[in-house]
């Protein structure tokens, strides 16, 4: 199902809001990953169906994506009712019922869960930031910026583009300063990364990034084989 970009402007804003919902593990938009396979819009009422690469994907991440999608759509002015459900999944019933009733993850999986998902989300937000920072540093070094010079770079010096946007958003997610005058080299806890430690830090961060990007590719591959989609990457908003 596709969202027609020339349709109702409220529908367009709603679709764009959904495009801001990330798979927390992959740090990619669920709309880009092909996880949105049905989108129905009728004058302010939206119904979205999600699907995942495997029947046994981790339910905690699945929960975060479903609830984030609901929250993102609810926040759009002009959207009156939102229904988000997850299909073809071992815990579809638990999650869909829980989300529709607006209960928490702990109530939805009562007896199996000690707490909420804040710690899990924080862990993966930190990884997403580390990967984004490494990507930016790699790009700057390719452009000839030396290691010591990286220590002087401020966010406002970065070239405009999706990588910089992502890095800035990830800083915001972690509550780190993200203004144009703020220094680039800050780790996920907000501490400065000193230039002598930078090479080792970047080498570890590279592995974090490779893993995250690779999981995204693997998930796309599995979703593709599961649903035999011709070309997810080229499908854009059409699922």
């Amino acid at each position, binding site marked *: 199902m596709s969202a027609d970009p020339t349709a109702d402007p409220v529908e367009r804003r709603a679709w764009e809001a959904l495009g801001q919902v990330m798979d927390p*593990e992959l740090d990619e938009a669920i709309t880009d990953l092909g996880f949105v396979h049905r989108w129905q819009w009728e004058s302010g009422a939206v119904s979205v169906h999600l699907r995942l690469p*495997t*029947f*046994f*994907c*981790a*339910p*905690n991440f699945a929960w975060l994506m479903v609830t984030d999608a609901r929250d993102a759509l609810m926040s759009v002015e002009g959207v009156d009712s939102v229904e988000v459900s997850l299909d073809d999944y*071992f*815990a579809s019933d638990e999650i869909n019922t829980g989300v529709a009733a607006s209960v928490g*993850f*702990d109530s939805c*999986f009562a007896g*199996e*869960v*000690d*707490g*909420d*998902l804040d*710690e*899990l989300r924080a*862990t993966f937000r930190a990884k997403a930031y580390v990967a984004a920072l490494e990507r930016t540093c790699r790009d700057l070094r390719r452009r000839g910026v030396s290691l010591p010079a990286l220590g002087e770079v401020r966010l406002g010096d970065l070239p405009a583009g999706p990588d910089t946007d992502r890095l800035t958003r990830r800083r915001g997610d972690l509550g780190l300063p993200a203004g144009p005058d703020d220094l680039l080299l800050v780790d996920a806890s907000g501490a400065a990364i000193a230039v002598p430690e930078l090479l080792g830090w970047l080498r*570890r961060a590279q*592995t*974090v990034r*490779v*893993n995250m*990007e*690779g*999981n995204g*590719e*693997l998930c796309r*591959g*599995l979703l593709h*084989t*599961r649903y035999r989609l011709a070309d997810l990457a080229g499908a854009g908003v059409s699922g």
Partner: protein
Amino acid sequence: MYTKDGKDYFVVDGHTHFWDASPANWVAGQEQYAKGWIECFHAYQHLGPPETHWPLDKFQRYGEETMVRDLFEEGYVDKAILQSTYLREWYRNGFNTVDGNGSMVERYPDRFIVNGRFDPRDGDEGLATLERDAKRWNLKGVKLYTAEWRRGSRGWTLKDPEAHRYLERCEQLGIVNIHVHKGPTIWPLDKDAFDVSDVDHAATDFPGLNFIVEHVGLPRIEDFCFMATQEPNVYAGLSVVVGGLLHARPRFFAKVMGELLFWVGEDKMLFGSDYAIWEPKWQIERLMSWDYPDDGEFADYPRLGEAGRRKILGLNAARLYGIEVPSGTGLEAGQPSLVGE
């Protein structure tokens, strides 16, 4: 045996399965999980080359003749390690059990090695079973499946005190190779279910045991790599890495190999086909001729030379399992490794 440029390479397939996931073996009332499980694996198979895909009914139950042909006649494998995974909540006679796998060893004693399993939630009874299995099948290894569902519990961790009792008993019984698998997994529900830190604890507490992390901790390669550099007795099991990535995602495969060679090293990486998800034939052929893409992005990764290929394909597993290596296929047969140059 794989032969390339007139040279023989000894092949140990460190991760194979002889399963029955046909509907006749599904537990009544649990069909959706039994079906979901095997269909999930079947989708993985489609990450391999199209000519190696099987129809679902064959994939559910392929039988002994097919397996022997795919591994030893067509697949270059000299020795195959059968891993045992029970999943009795979903499969009546188990998905693949020690006794079922052991029967293959009885029929093909020169070809198969069977690994046992344990689940610390089985308590004293499970310890007795482990001891019986160890004696009956001369176990040198176990495969641990921490994500197995059991009576309302969705999994366990190597940090559990009960797990320590089992690892102690393994050491006493001469079971030195502990293969640990984590995915597809969902538990613990509110934490990262793929977290490998429990292996880190166990490897520190049991320096006499080898811990082979199957699928290299996918999807947490970075956590696995950082842990493996700290622990001399932690190894990378390449099952899924080769089968799931080499054909479908060659650039990512190259990056994963590069990361593993950098952090873990060629002395601690073990080939495994994960049969019957993927056949070994194409995996071994492609791995033997594999190199990084000719691209600056890969320039800093360690290279994989002939010695490294020998180790990964068979010599490392032979060392861990005490398998005799035929003359002419050891390291003396190859050139010095290029790793580190």
